[in-house]
C-alpha cells in the first residue's frame, strides 16, 4: 500500500519537477480564515501541505513564525482544533499530503498515543516534531510508524556523515533538509551551498529530499527546485498573513487572496525551474 506522500513524490518524478511545500500555522490568524487558506492551497499550487501546531515557545522559529504561533493561540487554537481543521480539509481533498509540524509538549500533554490515533483518523500523513531527535525515537517516532504515520526528520548542515545513518534510520515519507544553521525565516538559503549537501544526502538515502528554511522568493525557490525534490516555504507565507492584518489584528479583506497569490507565484517558479 502506498501513502499519499509516496504517490505525490512519484507523480512529481514522472512530471520531472520539484514540488512546492507550503507551511502555515494552524488557526493563524483565526480558524475560519485559516480554513479558507488551507482549502485552496492545492489549487494555488501547493503539492504538499505543512501545518504548524501552535506552541507558546517555538524555539527553532524566527520572529515571523513565532508571531504566527501566538496569533493562533490567541485565537483559541488547540491540538484538537488543529486536527478538526485537518479532518474537514481531508473530507474535500483526499490526495494532497498533509504533514503536521511542531513541538513535542502539546502532543505529550494531549497524550501521545491518543494524538497519533486521532491524527491517523483525521487524515494526517506525517509528522515533523522539531525537538525529537533520533535519540528520542521511542517517544513518538516508533509509535507513529507502527500506525502508518510517516515521521519526517530534519537533517541539518551539522548532521555529518557519521551521524546521518542514525538520523535516517526511522525516517519515512521524505527527508527535510534544513538549508542553514539557524531559525526559520531569518537568513537566506543559498542554492550553491545546498546543492552539494543534497548530493551528499542522496548518497545515504533514496528518500525524496525537501529543502527548507530561508527560502522566500520565487527566484530562490526555483534555484532550490533545480537541486531538491521539494522546496518548503514558510515564513514568507506566514509573513504575508501578518502583512494583511488590521491594527486590531483582524484579517483584512485581501489576506486570503494575497497568500494564495504568493503560493501561485512560488508554484510557477518551482514548476518551471527545470525547464
Amino acid at each position, binding site marked *: 500500500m502506498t501513502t499519499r506522500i509516496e504517490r505525490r513524490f512519484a507523480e512529481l518524478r514522472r512530471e520531472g519537477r520539484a514540488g512546492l511545500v507550503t507551511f502555515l500555522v494552524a488557526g493563524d490568524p483565526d480558524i475560519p480564515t485559516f480554513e479558507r487558506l488551507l482549502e485552496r492551497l492545492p489549487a494555488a499550487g501547493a503539492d504538499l501541505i505543512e501545518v504548524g501546531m501552535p506552541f507558546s*515557545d517555538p524555539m527553532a522559529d524566527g520572529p515571523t513564525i513565532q508571531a504566527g504561533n501566538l496569533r493562533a493561540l490567541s485565537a483559541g487554537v488547540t491540538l484538537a482544533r488543529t486536527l478538526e481543521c485537518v479532518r474537514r480539509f481531508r473530507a474535500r481533498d483526499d490526495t494532497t499530503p498533509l504533514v503536521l509540524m511542531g513541538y513535542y509538549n502539546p502532543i505529550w500533554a494531549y497524550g501521545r498515543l491518543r494524538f497519533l490515533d486521532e491524527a491517523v483518523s483525521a487524515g494526517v500523513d506525517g509528522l515533523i516534531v522539531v525537538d525529537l531527535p533520533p535519540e528520542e525515537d521511542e517517544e513518538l517516532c516508533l509509535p507513529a510508524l507502527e500506525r502508518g504515520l510517516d515521521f519526517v526528520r530534519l537533517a541539518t548542515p551539522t548532521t555529518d556523515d557519521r551521524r546521518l545513518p542514525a538520523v535516517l534510520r526511522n525516517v519515512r515519507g521524505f527527508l527535510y533538509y534544513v538549508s542553514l544553521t539557524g531559525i526559520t525565516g531569518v537568513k537566506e538559503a543559498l542554492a550553491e551551498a545546498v546543492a552539494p549537501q543534497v548530493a551528499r544526502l542522496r548518497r545515504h538515502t533514496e528518500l525524496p529530499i525537501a529543502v527548507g528554511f530561508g527560502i522566500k522568493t520565487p527566484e530562490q525557490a526555483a534555484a532550490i527546485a533545480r537541486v531538491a525534490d521539494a522546496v518548503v516555504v514558510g515564513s514568507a507565507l506566514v509573513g504575508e498573513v501578518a502583512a494583511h492584518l488590521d491594527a486590531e489584528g483582524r484579517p483584512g479583506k485581501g489576506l486570503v487572496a494575497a497568500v494564495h497569490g504568493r503560493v501561485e507565484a512560488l508554484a510557477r517558479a518551482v514548476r518551471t525551474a527545470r525547464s
Partner: protein
Amino acid sequence: MTIANSLRTGPDEHGRFGLYGGRFVAETLMPCILELEAAWEAVRRDPGFQAELDAWLADYVGRPSPLYFAERLTEALGGAKIYLKRDELNHTGAHKINNCIGQALLAKRMGKRRVIAETGAGQHGVATATVCARLGLDCVVYMGERDIERQKPNVFRMRLLGAEVRPVSSGSRTLKDAMNEALRDWVTNVESTFYLIGSVAGPHPYPAMVRDFQAVIGREAKAQILEKEGRLPDVLVAAVGGGSNAMGLFHPFLDDREVRLVAVEAAGEGLDTGLHAAAMLKGRPGILHGSRSYLLQDEDGQVIEPHSISAGLDYPGIGPEHSWLKDIGRLEVTAATDREALEAFETLARLEGILPALEPAHALAATAKLAPSLPKDALVVVNLCGRGDKDVYTVARHLGVEL
C-alpha cells in the same frame, strides 16, 4: 565505595532521571550536544582539569564559603539551630560562578571562542560575563526586558565586564524567553559558540554537568557541619527556580537518607492565584528547553507564564533531577510567597546584618515556618546562595520607598 541503591548515580546513558531529563532538541544542536557530552566526560575524569578548577574556585571565587551559625535568627525563631551556607560571599555575589568557571574552562578546552548565556536575576549573566572577561572569551547574555527593568544594576555590571546584553521582547520577557532566544542563537552559531546554561535544566548533559559543578556547595557544607557539630544536619533548605543552588547543596547528601531535603518554590502572590512559579507543586510533567520535567502549562501543553518577585525563580520549569527526587519521595517541596520572602529579607538584614537575595529569601521564609517546630538541637542548613544588593530597588518599591 559504591552504595547499594545509591540515588547519586543518575542520569542514565540517555540522560534520564526516571521519566525526566532527556535530549529534546532540534537536530542542528544534537551533534553539538554529543560533542559537549564527550568533552564533559573526558574532563570530569581528568585530575588536571579538576585541579585547575579547584585553583580557580579557591583563588578567584573565594571558596570554601563559610558555614555560618545564625545565632540571632536561631534565637528569634526559637527552634532548630540554623546555619547559613554563605555562597553569597563568592566573587560576583552568588553561587552561579561555581558553574560558570567550570563551563568556561570546558569551553576553552573545546576551542569555543564565543559564549552565550541566559539570565533571569542577572546573577548568572554577571558570573558568565565575569569569567568570560577573565578568560578572554566573547560573551553575549540574553535577558528578558522585564528582568532588565527589575535588575538594572546587574545589567550595568555585565556591560562593564564587556558582555553584550541582548534584551528579549518575546513571550513573558523573562527567563524562559531569554532561554528560548539563547537556544535560537545557539542553533544559528552552533560551530563557534558554547551555550553556558546557568541552571540544572536544559538537555543532557547540562543538568548533570551543572549539578556536578555546583556540588562543591554540598561537599563543603558536609565537611563544615561535621567539623562544627560532629554530625550531619537534619534538614537542608534551598530555594528552587531552575534548581542549581538546591541541587548543589543536596546532591552530596542524597544517600544520607536521614537528612531531609526541602526545596522552596516561589509561590508569588499565592499558590491558588495562578501568579506563581511553583512548577513541582502546581505543574505537570512536560517538555521545555530540552528536557522533560515538571512544568507550568495549561491543558493544551502551552507554557504558562510564571510570576515571582524574584527574577531568579521566575521560571516555569525545574531541573529534571528535582522532579525525579520529588516523585520518589526524597525531596520535600514547599513554597514561599513574595510577601513572605520580603519579610524574611528584612528579618535577616536586621538580625544578622546580611542582605539576602530575594531567591534565598524564599528559603529563609520556609525556614522561618519550619524551624520553630523542630527541637532546639536540630540542625538546619540554609543555602544563602546570593546577596541582596541587586534587589534593593525591588524591595524598596515593595516597601513604598523611593530611591
